[in-house]
C-alpha cells in the first residue's frame, strides 16, 4: 500500500481512496495441493455440515428430549444421577479413597491435578517432538485418563436401570381440582389413605396420585379393602357406610377432571 505524501483519502476519514483490487495469494506460495478457503473449501464444509445436521435431526426425532416428573424435594426415594458426562466424577467420589475423610483428595486434588495437567500440557510436554510415539509420557497419561473416564462412566451407568427409572418418573401434569376437605368422605380419606396418597390426593413416594383415575364407586370400594398392585389389602379401616362415603368422594374429585 502506498504510504506518506500524496496519499488520497475518502473525505476526512483514514480510509484510502486508492482502490486495492481483491487479489488472492498465489498458490505457488504454499506447499502441497492447497485449496482456496473461499468458496471452494467452504462449500465442501457446508456439505459435510448438512449431512451432519440431517443425522442430528434424525437423532432428535427418534429420541425426544426426556422430561421427568416435576421436582419434588420431599421425594426421598429418588436416586440422583448427574448428566452422563459427569458420571465418571460422580462414580469416582463413591470410592473409599475418594470419599469421607478423603473427600478433599477425591473432589479437589485428583480432578485438579488431571484438569490442571490438561490445561498446562504445553508447558509440561515441552519437547520438540509432535508424534505421539515420540512423547510416551504425555501419550501414556492421556490414554490412562481416557480409559479411566470411560471405565468409571461404564461402572456408574451399569447399575442403573434406565428404563425403570424413566417409567417411574413419567411426567404428569397435575390437573387443578378443588378438594372439599369438609366433606365426610375426606374425613375417612384422612384416616385411611392420606398417609400414602397425600392430603391433596396427589400421591407420594409410595403411592400414585388419585386424581385422573378412572374407577367406579364399586371398584374403589374393592381396591380400598383388597388393595391393588403394590397396595396391600386391609388399608381401609372403618364401617361400610364410611367406605361408601370414601369411594363417592374420590369419584366426585375425579369427575372434576373429566
Amino acid at each position, binding site marked *: 500500500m502506498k504510504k506518506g505524501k500524496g496519499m488520497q483519502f475518502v473525505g476526512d476519514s483514514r480510509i*484510502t481512496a486508492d482502490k486495492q483490487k481483491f487479489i488472492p495469494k498465489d498458490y505457488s506460495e504454499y506447499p502441497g495441493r492447497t485449496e482456496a*478457503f473461499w468458496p471452494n473449501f467452504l462449500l465442501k464444509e457446508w456439505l459435510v455440515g448438512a449431512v451432519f445436521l440431517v443425522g442430528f*435431526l434424525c437423532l432428535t426425532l427418534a429420541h*425426544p428430549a426426556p422430561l421427568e416428573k416435576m421436582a419434588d424435594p420431599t*421425594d426421598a426415594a429418588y436416586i440422583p444421577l448427574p*448428566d*452422563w458426562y459427569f458420571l465418571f466424577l460422580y462414580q469416582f467420589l463413591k470410592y473409599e479413597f475418594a470419599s469421607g475423610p478423603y473427600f*478433599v483428595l477425591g473432589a479437589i486434588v485428583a480432578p485438579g491435578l488431571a484438569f490442571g495437567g490438561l490445561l498446562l500440557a504445553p508447558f509440561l510436554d515441552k519437547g520438540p517432538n509432535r508424534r*505421539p510415539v515420540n512423547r510416551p509420557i504425555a501419550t501414556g497419561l492421556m490414554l490412562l485418563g481416557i480409559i479411566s473416564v470411560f471405565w468409571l462412566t461404564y461402572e456408574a451407568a451399569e447399575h442403573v436401570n434406565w428404563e425403570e427409572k424413566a417409567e417411574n418418573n413419567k411426567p404428569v401434569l397435575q390437573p387443578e381440582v378443588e378438594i372439599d376437605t369438609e366433606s365426610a368422605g375426606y374425613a375417612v380419606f384422612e384416616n385411611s389413605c392420606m398417609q400414602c396418597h397425600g392430603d391433596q390426593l396427589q400421591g407420594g413416594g409410595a403411592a400414585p396420585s388419585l386424581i385422573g383415575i378412572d374407577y367406579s364407586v364399586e371398584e374403589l370400594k374393592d381396591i380400598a379393602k383388597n388393595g391393588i398392585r403394590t397396595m396391600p389389602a386391609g388399608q381401609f379401616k372403618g364401617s361400610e357406610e364410611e367406605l361408601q362415603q370414601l369411594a363417592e368422594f374420590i369419584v366426585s374429585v375425579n369427575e372434576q377432571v373429566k
Partner: protein
Amino acid sequence: MMQRIYDWIDERVDITPLWRDIADHEVPEHVNPAHHFSAFVYCFGGLTFFVTVIQVLSGMFLTMYYVPDIENAWKSVYYLQTEVAHGQIVRGMHHWGASVVIVMLFLHTLRVFFQGAYKKPRELNWMVGVMIFFVMLGLGLTGYLLPWDNKAYFATQVTLEIAEGVPFIGEATKTLLAGDAEIVGAQTLTRFFAIHVFFLPAALFLLMGIHFIMIRKQGISGPL
C-alpha cells in the same frame, strides 16, 4: 447488484482487509479430506462450532416459552414439549446438542493432543481451548437444572453438596450458586438461569473469539 453494494460500503469503510482476514486464505493439503481421507479428524473443531451455533439458536427459541420460576418452569417445559408446534424438536435439538457438543469437544481435544499441535507457538490457544471446555461443562451443569424435574433437582443438589465440601471457599461458593446456604429452590433456579443464559455464554463467545483470532494469526499446525 451485490457487487455494487459491496463496493459502495467498501469505498466508505474499507471492509476488504477484514474480509480477507476472515475468508481469504489457503487450506493446506494435509488438513483437506479431499486429498487425505484421514484428515477428517480436522472436522471436529468445526463441528463443535456448528453444534454451538445450533445450541445458541435453539436456546434463543426456548427462552420464548421458558419461565425461570419454580412454580412454572416445569409446566412451561411440559407445555413446550406437548403443545407448542415443533417445540419438541427445538427442545430435542438443545438437549441432544448439549451432549453432542461435549463429544465433539472431546474428539477435537484428543486430535490436538495426540498430534502435539499445542506445542510452541500454540500454547496459549490450547489453554483457551481447555477453558472453553470448562465453560461448556458449566453450561451443561447449569442447563441441567432448568427443566426443574426430579432428575434436575436432585442432580443439582448433589453438585451443590460437592461444591460445599470444598475447604475454605466451599460454603461461599454454594451460597453464590444456590442463593442460599441451605435451600435449593427459587433462588437457585433463577441464578442457574442467569448463569446459563448470560454469564457463561458471554465467557464462551469471548473465548471462542480469541480462539479463532489466534487460529487465523498462527495458521493451522503443519503435518506431523
